[in-house]
């Protein structure tokens, strides 16, 4: 069952805030994790782990490199959860 994209964005914003300290309202679909939100590779791994737990989705390592923007992650999670 596909998850609601708005709910995913809200949940993802909470995770990014918790892990990286980025303000939740800055976690919007067009933002790049690395270039706009200044999230390093280790924090990205932690965010992926937290998303897997929160949304019950599996995000294989070969998919993570495709999740460049917040929107990429929302789409992947809402499609695969």
């Amino acid at each position, binding site marked *: 069952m596909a998850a609601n994209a708005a709910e995913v964005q809200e949940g993802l914003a909470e995770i990014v805030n918790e*892990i990286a*300290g980025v303000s939740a309202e800055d976690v919007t679909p067009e933002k790049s994790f690395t270039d706009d939100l200044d999230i390093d*590779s*280790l924090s990205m791994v*932690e965010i992926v*782990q937290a998303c*897997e737990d929160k949304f019950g989705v599996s995000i294989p390592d070969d998919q993570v490199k495709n999740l460049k923007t917040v929107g990429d992650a929302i789409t992947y999670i809402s499609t695969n959860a």
Partner: protein
Amino acid sequence: MTSIVVTGLGATTPLGGDVATTWAALLDGRSGVRALTEEWAAELPVRIAAPAAVDPLDVLDRVEARRMDRFGQMAMVAAREAWAHAGSPEVDGDRLGVAVASGIGGLTTTLATYDTLNEKGPRRVSPFAIPMLMPNSAAGYVGIELGARAGVHTPVSACASGSEAIAYGVDMIRNGRADIVVAGGTEACIVPLPLAAFSSMKAMSLRNDEPERASRPYDVERDGFVLGEGAGIVVLESAEHAAARGATVYARVGGAGYSADAHHITQPDPVGRGAISAMRHALSAAGLDLADVVHINAHATSTPQGDVAEAQAIRVVFGAAADGICVSGTKSMTGHLLGAAGAVETIATILALYERLAPPTINLDTLDEGVDLDIVTEPRKLPAGDLAALNNSFGFGGHNVALVLTTA
């Protein structure tokens, strides 16, 4: 030879979240030891410890703190205080070094991560586990914070680590590698495993019913050390660099002496050979006469064997001149901060010289007859004029480090 001065001090200890609070408590003769009433301690043979007076989580930014083990957090708190105390010096990063030691490193993270691995599987192991648990994590974070590019180092020598880091910092400046080195030690491992393991070694006090009386160096009733946590950091600087920027100098580092027992992994050499040679090397490096030394902050952990072995080594080194030295065992108040001990005690030694006041040794009711030294039990005024003091630190593994400090 390059003269080295101390221009900044920082600490977070069982007695206070900064240097001023810690120093006031030392002079007051307060104990930082308390009962461990937490549920996890209920079945342990040792149920006392000296936790940090201020939780670093209450001081640091939440996100930066979650990427550091507690021992790294302690170091960051102390390093920031020391750097600010030194006046946040303008220095070329290529001439700024860091030497921050730990005895044990990020044990809390190691244990918690192992639980995660077993309970949730390998894919839930944090990517920050290694950078948090590695013993050089604290030094690395402090180096990044300050932009220290001359070298970032982590000597590991158990309970001598903090002093060894300061000695290493002195070497860095003397070797021309840096103008300033931020040096010290940090430790945070008040968790069941080390309490149980040190207890198995019969190294710890079992005075669970009287926490504040448990750490009692030189007293006949002493029965082991009390585990503490915290960090101590000093800013070491070439005298020339400090003078050029008009920095306040709190003390000079006369010299450092290292040695190793090469005897037993945990027992001190029965005739104190290693301790004796470390003190002699330090005095020689400082070019001092025995009579110049007026104060010693002893390693004095409150173990039956160690306190006497060190006291006798001091008597061998100084002979009759030891009569003129007041000796303090500040672990009676702080507990034993392991890899941070040497650094916190170096700070106490510096302040004793700067304030001309030696801190007391508490809980000393009946002096062990094997100790032929003037152990101060109340704050003792030190004389005017140029003074020197010694700080001893010894560690499992047979490491011995002695630092000579002199008045500014």
